[in-house]
């Protein structure tokens, strides 16, 4: 029984179970399709496809992690999608002589942006969506301004080659860095007090405050981490490509990140989700996109599928779906059991 189930009445538990296993189920289906595709058709799946999926994980995966962490804390940071492009742009502009400098400057800017937005959201208790929409547009604007809306070349090709060189056929430094960040996040969220505090702040902010959780500090911290984790993939991809463009971020990255995070079982009401689930969500979505590449589908198919998928997962995690389902009389598994069948008194088993 997962955290979401414990908080919900018995009638909607099947729904919660579904949300809990959804990330792993979709990942399993994705892997099965990937494995079975060559068996039942003439399309070939090679280790390069797996490498490609992990490369994508190393970029948009981190953007998703950044968004997902703010969602677990009960907020929604739209600005990660443009921090991603700004991070890369800053690194390319400042790291020409020494890539490490660019890397550090970009991550510091990410932290600063997180500090400002997190400070405003936590201290003034404003809904984070309008605040971060402002951030989203501002950061996108800044990356257009400093690049003059053009592609900016990065003269250090070595670092890109190093980041992208295949390791054990399917990995690269880029994907290993991303996996490391995920491992770190997963550890912090599962085994430290910090992780529990973040979940508490997302699940029930008032209760968390009463219980002595430093809510404001946790919120600011989450936004700072999100800013840094969102700037990192920008640096990685732009070093890889030896160029930065302001167009890599924006709404498309946002659609990917939101879809992957929701597929990964992150709840929109806060407190629900884990980095491992988010990773499963991203891998599922990356596998799906790789399949579209393998099948050589036209571009619009990807738009249709991601947009449709986002609507679908938003629907499945919508808080009042179960209720609506019962009202329209299509109850099925979601219908409240007949009272006789319920235990007469005491907590339900497993509570």
């Amino acid at each position, binding site marked *: 029984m997962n955290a979401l189930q414990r908080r919900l009445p018995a009638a909607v538990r099947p729904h919660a179970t579904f949300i809990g296993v959804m990330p792993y189920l979709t990942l399993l289906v994705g892997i099965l399709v990937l494995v079975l595709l060559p068996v039942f058709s003439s399309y070939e799946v090679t280790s390069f496809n797996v490498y490609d999926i992990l490369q994508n994980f190393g970029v948009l995966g981190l953007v998703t992690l950044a968004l997902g962490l703010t969602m677990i804390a009960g907020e929604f940071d739209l600005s990660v999608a443009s921090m991603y492009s700004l991070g890369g742009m800053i690194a390319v502009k400042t790291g020409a002589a020494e890539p490490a400098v660019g890397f550090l400057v970009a991550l510091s800017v990410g932290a600063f942006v997180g500090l400002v937005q997190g400070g405003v959201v936590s201290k003034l208790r404003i*809904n984070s969506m309008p605040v971060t929409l*402002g951030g989203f547009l501002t950061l996108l604007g800044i*990356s257009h301004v400093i690049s003059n809306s053009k592609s900016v070349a990065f003269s250090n090709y070595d670092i890109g080659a190093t980041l992208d060189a295949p390791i054990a056929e399917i990995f690269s430094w880029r994907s290993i860095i991303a996996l490391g960040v995920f491992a770190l996040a997963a550890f912090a969220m599962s085994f430290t007090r910090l992780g529990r505090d973040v979940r508490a702040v997302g699940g029930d902010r008032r209760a968390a405050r009463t219980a002595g959780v430093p809510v404001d500090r946790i919120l600011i911290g989450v936004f700072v981490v999100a800013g840094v984790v969102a700037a990192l993939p920008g640096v990685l991809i732009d070093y890889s490509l030896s160029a930065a463009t302001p167009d890599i971020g924006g*709404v498309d990255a946002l*659609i990917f990140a939101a879809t992957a995070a929701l597929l990964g079982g992150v709840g929109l009401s806060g407190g629900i989700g884990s980095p491992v689930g988010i990773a499963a969500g991203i891998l599922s979505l990356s596998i799906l996109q790789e399949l579209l590449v393998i099948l050589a589908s036209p571009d619009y*198919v990807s738009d249709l599928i991601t947009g449709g998928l986002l*609507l679908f997962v938003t629907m499945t995690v919508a808080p009042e779906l179960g209720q609506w389902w019962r009202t329209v009389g299509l109850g099925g598994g979601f219908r409240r059991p007949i009272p006789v069948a319920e235990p007469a008194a005491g907590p339900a088993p497993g509570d």
Partner: protein
Amino acid sequence: MAQAPAPAPPAAGGLALVIERTLGSRAALATRERLSWLLVNALPIVAFAAIVVVGWLTTDGFATWANVKAILAAVAFVGIIAIGTTVIMLSGNLFSLSLGVTAAVTAIFFMYALAWGLFAAIVLTVGLGLLIVALQGAMVGAWGANPIIVTIGAGGLQTGVALWVTGGESILPRGSSDAYQALARPLGGVPVGIYFFFGVAVAVELMLRRTRFGREIYLLGENRAAARAAALSVTRITTAAFALAGLCTGLAGVLIGAASANGSLLLEGQYTYDAIAAALVGGNAVTGGRGSVSRTVVGAILIATISDLLLLRGYSTGIQLLVKGLIVFVVVVLMNLERGRSR
């Protein structure tokens, strides 16, 4: 925090915190009320005046009739979509992040639909806009789905469908008649769109103030739980509010399509963000329940003038996004400071 002895003032300015500390609570109260009144009602107008003066003094070609007409045309497009955004905002569903896409998609459809005659094309296009956005509203209302995410997803879906149908090409008007150009010509010296804009503004404002449906939107936005307790159907009101936004966006699509005499996804421009910025800068509460169309009208004029001034001064996409982003950020923070202390 100093408490008012009498019932709390309707609004309290966070800016006045310092004044309150120095002057004591009673004097501060009056100042605070005045400050927050200024903040909400006069600030957009003062800002507009400042921009006009700055533009006049520093920018060639700003204070010309041709430019005023260009601004008015932009006001019509941004403003009509912003009225839609306002209705969504008032109903407590924040805003849509894909009305610009819908405007472009309906403009594309308008080009196709012109084959059936101008009147049918307008009706069908507005109907399409209404349908697209109402469906999103139904998801939000019936299932409590998050409006921002639903509208982002729906935007992706619309982009996909539009690319599929058009093959990524720009669509020229179908049909032999070019009667649609009447929608792009000036009428009485100003762009036709501006009449539609004020027409829609008056109609929606009257509807919000005078009809039951309008009051229901305010109630839902102010207090969702109370609306539910009053046995109002959240699903119906939310769907209707989004439908109204879709109707506005479809109409904007018609005007934008007619003005550019072609339909493509590029027409999206920054309408989504401009509309949100206009609704916010006019002084509508982003969390719903407070605001009016007349505020949005002021906001739309302000945003269109700022965009125009930036464009005249040669600032492209980047600065435009940057300025609008900062406007959204600052206005959301200011409005919250103003409201926050009255609670």
